[in-house]
């Protein structure tokens, strides 16, 4: 940080490549975000529309499952294999998963049944 700042000139090709890559990334983020909002809207809509519980429950659970996957892979970058401190990041994600699973198990076993 405190070095005499070393500036590396980017080549035109590198610049163009980064630009395109960033644009694709941004498009992905926006699309995924729209999907998340849409799913949430559908979940509310099926409840408000007063469908049969046998329809509502599986639909909401299915949407929730997709949202979890989207959250992890689109917004939390679980798919990326190369990043600084990727090992630490993965440790955190999996620890979080283990801890969350304990809560899930607890709700299923000792709260509701």
């Amino acid at each position, binding site marked *: *940080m*405190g*070095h*005499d*700042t070393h500036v590396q000139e980017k080549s035109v090709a590198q610049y163009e490549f980064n630009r395109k890559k960033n644009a694709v990334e941004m498009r992905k983020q926006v699309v995924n975000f729209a999907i998340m909002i849409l799913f949430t809207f559908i979940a509310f809509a099926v409840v408000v529309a007063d469908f049969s519980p046998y329809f509502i429950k599986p639909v909401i659970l299915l949407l929730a499952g997709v949202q979890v996957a989207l959250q992890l892979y689109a917004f939390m970058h679980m798919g990326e294999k190369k990043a*600084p*401190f990727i090992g*630490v990041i993965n440790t*955190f994600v999996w*620890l*979080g998963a283990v*801890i969350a699973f*304990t*809560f899930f198990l*607890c*709700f299923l*076993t*000792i*709260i*509701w049944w």
Partner: protein
Amino acid sequence: MSSVAISKKTGFGATLWDYLTTVDHKKLGNMYFFAGLLFFAIAGFEALLIRIQLMVPNNDFVSAGLFNELLTMHGTTMLFLAATPLLFGFMNAIVPLQIGARDVAFPFLNSLGFWLFFLGALFLHLSFFMGGAPDAGWTSYASLSLYSPGHGIDFYVLGLQISGAGTLISGINFIVTIITMRAPGMTFMRMPLFTWTTLISSALILFAFPPLTVGLFFMLVDRMFGANFFDHTMGGNTIIWEHLFWIFGHPEVYILVLPAFGLFSEIIPVFARKRLFGYSSMVFATILIGFLGFMVWAHHMFTTGLGPTANAIFAVATMAIAVPTGMKVFNWILTIWGGSIKVTVPMIYALGFIPSFVAGGVTGVMQATAPLDYQLHDSYFIVAHFHYVIVGGIVTAIFGATHFYWPIMFNRVLNEKLGYIVFWVFFIGFHLTFFLQHFLGLMGMPRRVFTYQADQGWDLYNFISSIGAIMMGIGVILLVVNMLLSIKGKPVNQRDYWGDGRSLEWALVTPVPFYNFKQTPLIRGYDPYWIEKHEGNKEGMTYAEPLGDIHMPHGSILPLIMSIGMFIAAFGALYHPDGVSWSVPVIILGIGITVACMILRSFKDDLGYHVHKEEIIALEEELYGKGGNK
């Protein structure tokens, strides 16, 4: 240019503006420290009123309703608004120095975290003047709190929601700082123990605060917007609150006690003048305590009727925590063992801490035994247990570290003689207050009662307990006096005040300039400053780079405005159930202010500024005389 170091004469307005906009971790550390101290004093005063009420049987010093409010606010304030910010103060002030960083990873978020915490805390305390404080205990169990009249519980929910967001932000900030901003050579297994415990307790914050946020949000919509998450007559379940609260609440205890362990792991080797015994086992014990801390929350709920299987599992898991904690205690003892011990004020706090904390741990294992817990539950035994852990573990750590780090934080020294007096008054008062409460509990005195009948054998013990509480109060007042006296003291202006510093923060000459290290240091092993000192390095550190321009962040007023936005929105939500016409506009206005600040921040690129080489040299000469920091 902001600077913590030079006491140039600036006007009051400029200084105030500097503190309102600062993103410097040292200044924010001081602000956390003094805000925490303020709330510590308030909650301590509430404790004194509680003890005066319980001093004699059938007392009517406070009414039953006010007693409930005092007791709730004492617990809530001590845990969320006193212990947490005091420890955050030390984390902010010390951790970046220990790992050789210029600032935390997200200076803006650091400031945002502080202001959210502070305004949330302020909001909660306004309840005293606006129709009554929360009165359902710090756990605020839904079956009680849903039916509490007035706005007390609403203040609790909204205040904690805001200050909890601040704590979560600060926690994430420290995780990123410690993982990514260590100086070259500072591997994970060379990090000082305080940095390790800060990392682990920040990870606990990351995982534990979301359940609290969810629980508070459920409570908020239940009370203020007519939902029924916890109302069993409408298909809800009141036990869900208890689970969500304790999923957060138990790790919260470790969030507080782990940094306290870290502080003692810094203090003890310095004054035993010996390397910390079993460093790697200390690290793994810390991680293990953190992990197990998430698997034991239901031991607070043995008597809610979870069933024998669940009780057995949580009982065993709870007892398992005693193993890594025991490892830590033995490591501290073995660090002291055979050391060339120098007894100073921080060290005497450490020596007092070990037996007190072990006493609290032992009663903890007793309560982990589920069948016995049916007897102990909701009695004064529980009160005695957690005060032994919190006062004996966390408060002694905070007081000890205050003496220990005062030279680095403020370039002054706390008076040693007065320090000893404070220690003995406080320590004796602490044991007088809480030791006898074990027996009060065993004799059947329930906790959270506002008075009791005479001649049940409780009178004398309660009286002694109250005397002890007054001694603790005197101790805290004397500590504050000591802090005030230090303003007039001589500046330290040297590195390694205690003479036996081991980790990197002692390599810096105080006052520490705002950029911390003029050149990033190179870490050549565990206890880097000790290594350099022993190799005769006069500068205290080997540098990893030549002197060059330093990149620093700009200050910003936005965090304060964002927090004020949330503060305003909270009033709208608070009065919404009263059916006032302005509640929704106020919510929209408040959140609008916050969102506008966020938009402003994302559109205005702030890339910080560079402190040039010449400026650094000039500043160093001004601080340390000719030749700079040599």
